[in-house]
């Protein structure tokens, strides 16, 4: 593009420095064109350089690694050996891998379904003429600004068997103390609670933003047609909210399947087995166990990473198609 084809601009907002020396016209024009054509690439270069080196390259390398026997520490001296699909064959036959798949999806479902229902409910409540609006929005979001490590430490104590607050509350309902670390269902519940506590408010605000973008006259005509609040929610809010809801579910899938910190710290912080019988070892923890903790198995760990990646893609795509189909 060149300047000459533009319509005359409005008067300059910034005053031209009066004593500015005029460059030779041709050289100035040449520099100007270079600035216009070349500088954009310079401005976007930092992102692509950093992402290329520390984002794209490691991701592609993961795929390459997964077809090799790979020792992460001794790679430079010993090199690696191509073994084809062996890592993936081992993966399919590894009970601990399937255990991790089960845990990851189990926790994801136990966490996400109630979380999205609660977020919709709260967003619908916040989408009204309220006093103390900002305060109420801040209180639902504040869990999200806490570190996951801190959340896991506090909830680990709340879920203690002998003196934890959760068991104390439950005893009013006649429930005898639960050893939350002892079973799969209890670990999943405790971890899902942490995830939901931290993320429900965030998703509430995203959904609220989507609700507020819905044109108000849709509700007005629904009111004229005699639709009550509940009916309006299902016939106006939900259909109009579909793009936002899709965004929320996809980010929940991408984030939820990568779950790591909560189960690690809930199970004593420094190992990635997820409990004495791996009650809560997620796929990311299993990947970690087979790469960073056992560096000679890094090729196998890379295969776990690729498998996790494929699962996320399939689930996100399936979700997209599902949400789109319900539109019709």
């Amino acid at each position, binding site marked *: 593009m060149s300047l000459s084809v533009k319509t005359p601009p409005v008067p300059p907002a*910034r005053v031209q420095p009066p004593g500015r020396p005029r460059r030779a016209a041709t050289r100035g024009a040449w520099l100007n064109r270079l600035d216009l054509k070349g500088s954009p690439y310079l*401005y*976007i270069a930092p992102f692509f350089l*950093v992402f290329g080196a520390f984002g794209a390259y490691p991701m592609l390398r993961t795929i390459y690694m997964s077809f090799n026997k790979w020792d992460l520490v001794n790679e430079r001296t010993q090199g690696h050996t191509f073994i084809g699909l062996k890592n993936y064959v081992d993966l399919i036959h590894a009970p601990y891998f399937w255990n991790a798949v089960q845990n990851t999806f189990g926790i994801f479902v136990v966490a996400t379904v109630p979380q999205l229902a609660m977020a919709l409910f709260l967003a619908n409540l916040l989408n*009204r*003429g309220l006093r103390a609006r900002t305060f109420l929005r801040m209180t639902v979001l504040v869990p999200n600004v806490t570190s996951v490590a801190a959340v896991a430490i506090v909830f680990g104590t709340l879920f203690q068997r002998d003196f934890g*607050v959760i068991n104390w509350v439950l005893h009013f309902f006649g429930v005898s103390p639960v050893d939350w670390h002892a079973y799969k269902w209890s670990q999943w519940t405790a971890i899902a609670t942490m995830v939901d506590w931290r993320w429900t*408010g965030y998703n509430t605000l995203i959904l609220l933003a989507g609700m507020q973008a819905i044109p108000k006259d849709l509700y007005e005509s629904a009111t004229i047609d005699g639709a009550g609040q509940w009916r309006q929610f299902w016939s106006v809010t939900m259909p109009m909210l579909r793009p936002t809801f899709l965004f929320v579910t996809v980010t929940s899938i991408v984030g939820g399947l990568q779950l790591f910190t909560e189960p690690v710290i809930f199970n*004593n912080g420094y190992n990635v087995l997820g409990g004495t019988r791996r009650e809560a070892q997620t796929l990311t923890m299993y990947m970690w166990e087979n790469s960073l903790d056992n560096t000679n198995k890094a090729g196998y760990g890379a295969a776990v990473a690729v498998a*996790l990646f494929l699962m996320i893609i399939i689930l996100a795509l399936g979700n997209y198609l599902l949400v789109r189909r319900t539109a019709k």
Partner: protein
Amino acid sequence: MTTGKSSQSGRLWRASPLTYVALIIAALLSLYPFYYMFIIATRALDAINSTPPPFTPGSAFFANFGRVLTKPDVNFWLGLRNSVVVCTVITVSVVLTSTLAGFAFAKLRFRGRNALLLTILMTMMIPTQLGLIPLWGMMLDLGWYDNLAAVIVPFLTSAFGVFMMRQYTASAVSDELIEAARVDGCTTLRIYWNVVLPAVLPAAAVLGLLTFMAQWNDFLWPRAILTPEHPTLQVSLGFISYGYYTDYSMVFAATAVGTLPLILVFVAFGRQIIGGIMEGAVKA
């Protein structure tokens, strides 16, 4: 929510008392774990065993936090300092590179612009953990194991930041203003610095806050590449909760101190942070 009341003729539904009750319950559930954390952090160790659980603060906070500092293997101050350094460097870099790239994508025309922007959008959907293992190996090769560079350099730019600033710059800076500056003889870099940056400052500030908080809270990667000898705050906290889990008062005192800075930031800028999150949601 099904109070049976029909909606009001105004712009919003009126909130019924039940709405407030539900929202206040949600607020209490949100706040209680923080409250519990500060209670335990200020109480002597035996408080944790009492039933019903304690609901009032004690006066043992300094004793509890003092014990954190006497544990040389925990390196709490070093972790705190490292976190401040890491988050500050990354935040400054992300804000500068994102506003610059956002300006280029929103206001400059160049070949491949749309394709490159689409690439950035797509990178946002890729789960970060896909590259974790080779990245760890790379850091080993670079000699950055247990070195702060390992938790800084890979995060100096942000796809989310570029996209957010592109959206904001496109709507907040008028083309006429940029044309005018150009006719004045401003180079694009001058336009960025004197025209664009001042105009996008509100969004840049929100991006800075979100970046700082996300980095402050990151656990997985620092835990992978740093040791408790040179930790960030979260690595230090993880190590305390593992090594001294029986001393709840001490663990909670450390956790409270590590959480407090973010809560203060949130109380001060909560309105802007909420605005940023909600605006981003509509535009995305």
